[in-house]
C-alpha cells in the first residue's frame, strides 16, 4: 500500500519538475509560446471546471470573465498611464473585476437550469462582446494595446510562462481543496439532484454563486495575463466564442468534474489548436478539425480520458480477483471519483 501512497505525490513532483524545467530545455520563443498558451488554458479550463464541472451547470460564457479581465488591465493601464513592469500590479484588479461581474451574472443566470442556463450564458457573452465593441472607453473595434515591456525578445515569454504556471498550479491546488471540502460536496450534490440537495439543507443559490464567482475571478486574472502577453485586446479576441467552446471541449476530453481531466485536456488540445492556426492561417481547416475532434470526443469518449482511464487501471488491478461492484446508480460516480484518487 505504501507504494500506492507514494505514487501520487511522486507523480505530482515529476509533473512540477517537468513544468519548471520546460522553458530551460525548450528555450526558443516558439516553444515557450506553446507553453504559455497551454498553461493559460490549463488555468482557464480548471477554473471553468471549478464551477461548471463540479456543479453540472455548463457555462458557455466563460469568455465574459476572460475578456473582462483583459479589458480591466488594458483600460486601467491606458487611463492611469501605467508603464513598464508596473502593469503586473494591475492583475489583482482584473481578478476583482471578474468576481464583481460574476455576482450579478450569477444572480440572473443561476435562477434557471440546464438549457436555459446555457443559453443565458451565451446571451450574456454576446452582451459583453457588443459592449466592448460599442463603448468608447474600450477602444471600440480597434481595441487597446498593452504598454511596452522592456524585455529582450529571446526571453520575453519566460516571465509569462512562470506567471501562468503559478496561476495554473494555484488553480489546480484550489480545485483539489474544494473537491475534498464540504463546499465541494455541496456542489456535487447540486450536480446530482439540486432539489434534493436543497431539501437536505444545502443553500444551493449561495453555493452556486460562490463557485461561479471564484471561477470568474481566476478566469479574469488569467485573462489579464493573456492580455499583457499578447499585448492587444479586441472585442473579437477578448470575447471569443471559440474560447468558450475550446474550454468546454478540453474539459470534456479530459473528464469534467475531475481534478486532472481539465489539465490533460488543455495540454492536449491547446498546443494542437495553436499548431493548426499557425499552419493554416485562414483558420477554416482548423475550425473543421476542431469540430471533428469535438464530435469524436463526445461520441467515442463521452466521459473523458481521466474517468475512462481510471476505470481501465482499476480493471487491470482487480483482474483475477472479484472486484467490489457497486450498485448500478452509484457506478458512474465511483468511476469518476476513482479516476483521480
Amino acid at each position, binding site marked *: 500500500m505504501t507504494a500506492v501512497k507514494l505514487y501520487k505525490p511522486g507523480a505530482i513532483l515529476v509533473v512540477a519538475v517537468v513544468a519548471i524545467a520546460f522553458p530551460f530545455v525548450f528555450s526558443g520563443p516558439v516553444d515557450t509560446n506553446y507553453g504559455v498558451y497551454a498553461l493559460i488554458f490549463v488555468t482557464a479550463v480548471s477554473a471553468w471546471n471549478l464551477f461548471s464541472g463540479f456543479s453540472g451547470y*455548463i457555462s458557455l460564457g466563460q469568455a465574459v470573465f476572460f475578456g473582462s479581465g483583459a479589458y480591466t488591465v488594458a483600460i486601467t493601464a491606458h487611463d492611469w498611464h501605467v508603464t513598464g513592469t508596473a502593469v503586473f500590479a494591475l492583475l489583482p484588479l482584473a481578478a476583482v473585476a471578474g468576481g464583481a461581474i460574476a455576482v450579478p451574472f450569477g444572480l440572473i443566470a443561476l435562477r434557471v437550469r440546464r438549457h*436555459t442556463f446555457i443559453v443565458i450564458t*451565451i446571451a450574456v457573452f454576446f*452582451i459583453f462582446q*457588443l459592449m466592448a465593441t460599442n463603448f468608447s472607453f474600450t477602444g471600440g473595434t480597434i481595441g487597446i494595446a498593452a504598454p511596452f515591456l522592456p524585455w529582450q525578445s529571446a526571453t520575453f515569454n519566460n516571465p509569462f510562462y512562470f506567471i501562468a504556471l503559478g496561476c495554473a498550479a494555484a488553480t489546480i491546488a484550489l480545485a483539489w481543496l474544494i473537491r475534498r471540502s464540504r463546499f465541494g460536496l455541496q456542489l456535487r450534490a447540486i450536480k446530482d439532484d439540486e432539489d434534493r440537495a436543497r431539501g437536505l439543507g444545502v443553500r444551493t443559490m449561495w453555493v452556486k454563486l460562490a463557485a461561479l464567482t471564484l471561477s470568474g475571478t481566476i478566469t479574469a486574472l488569467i485573462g489579464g495575463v493573456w492580455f499583457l502577453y499578447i499585448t492587444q485586446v479586441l472585442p473579437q479576441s477578448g470575447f471569443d466564442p471559440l474560447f468558450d467552446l475550446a474550454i468546454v471541449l478540453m474539459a470534456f476530453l479530459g473528464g*469534467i468534474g475531475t481534478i486532472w481531466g481539465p489539465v490533460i485536456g488543455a495540454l492536449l488540445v491547446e498546443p494542437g489548436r495553436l499548431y493548426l492556426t499557425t499552419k493554416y492561417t485562414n483558420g477554416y481547416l482548423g*475550425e473543421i478539425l476542431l469540430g471533428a475532434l469535438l*464530435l469524436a470526443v463526445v*461520441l467515442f469518449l463521452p466521459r473523458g480520458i481521466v474517468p475512462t482511464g481510471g476505470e481501465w487501471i482499476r480493471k487491470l488491478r482487480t483482474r483475477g480477483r472479484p472486484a467490489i461492484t457497486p450498485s448500478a446508480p452509484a457506478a458512474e460516480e465511483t468511476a469518476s471519483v476513482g479516476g483521480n484518487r
Partner: protein
Amino acid sequence: MTAEIYRAIVDGILIGGVYALMAVGLTLIFGVLDIINIAQGVLVILGAYLSYELAARLHLDLFLGLLVTVPAMFIIGVVIYWAFIRRLRGRERTAMTLLVTYAVALIIEGLLYLWWGPNFKQLNASYVNSSVHLLGFYLPYVYLYGFVLALALVAALYALLYRTKFGRSVRATMQDETAARLIGIDVNRVAAVTFGVGVAVTAAGGMMYGATSGGFNPNSGYDLISRLLAIIILGGMGSIGGALVASIFMLTVESLVDIWSPNWAIIVFYAALVIVLLIRPTGFFGRQPVRAQ
C-alpha cells in the same frame, strides 16, 4: 418622428416573421428532442447559400427554389440526427447534445468558408429591389411575400402537429417518451423526422434572411443563433406560437431602438431577454402551449 416610429414597428413585425421561420424549427426540435440545436444558425446560412446557388446557376426563382432547398435541408437534418444525436443518452445528455450540434455548426461553417469564401453574398430578385406603396410606407415586396410565407409555414406546422397522426405521435413523444414507446410509437423515427422538419423550415428562413439582411457570409450564423436562442427562450422553449410572438416582439423592439442608435439595438435584444427572464423564468408562454391541447 411619429412616421419613423410607425415605420420601425412595421419593419419589426415583417422581419419578425422571417425570424419566426428560423426560430420555429429550433423550438420544435427543443420541444420534442429536449436538445438545443446550436447548428440552427449556420443551417439557416446554408439554406441561404443553397438558394443563392440555385438562383445564380439555374436562374431559379427564390420562392420556387424552396421546392428544392426545403427537401434538401430536411435530408441534411435527418442525417445529422441519425449520425450524431441519436446515440447520445445518459446524464450529461444536455451538454453533450449542445456540444455535438456546436461541433456540427463549426464543421458546416468551415465547409461554407472553403466553398464560398468569406465575401458577403446577397440574394437578388425583382421583388427584392422594388417596393409597394402601402398605408403611407414603401415596403419591399419581398418583406410582404416573406411574411405571408412565414405565417403559412407556421400555420402548416401547427396543422402538422395538431391535425395529423404524425403530429399526435410527436406530441405523445413530447409528453412522455417511455409511454409513447409503450403504445407502439417509433420514437426514434419521430425524433428524426422532427429534427428534419425543424431543419427544413430553416431553408425558407435562410432564403428570406439572404434576401432581406443586406448580405451574409458563413460567419453570420453566430449572430443568428444567439438571436434565435433569445427568441425561443423569451417565447417559452418548445412553444411554436411563443416563438412567433417573441420574434415579432424582439424585432420590433430592436427596430425601435435602431432609430435612436443602431449600435445599441442588438444589445437591447439580449437585455430584453434578461429582464423578461428575471420577471418570468419560463418566458412568455412557458412550455405548456405545445404540450397541452
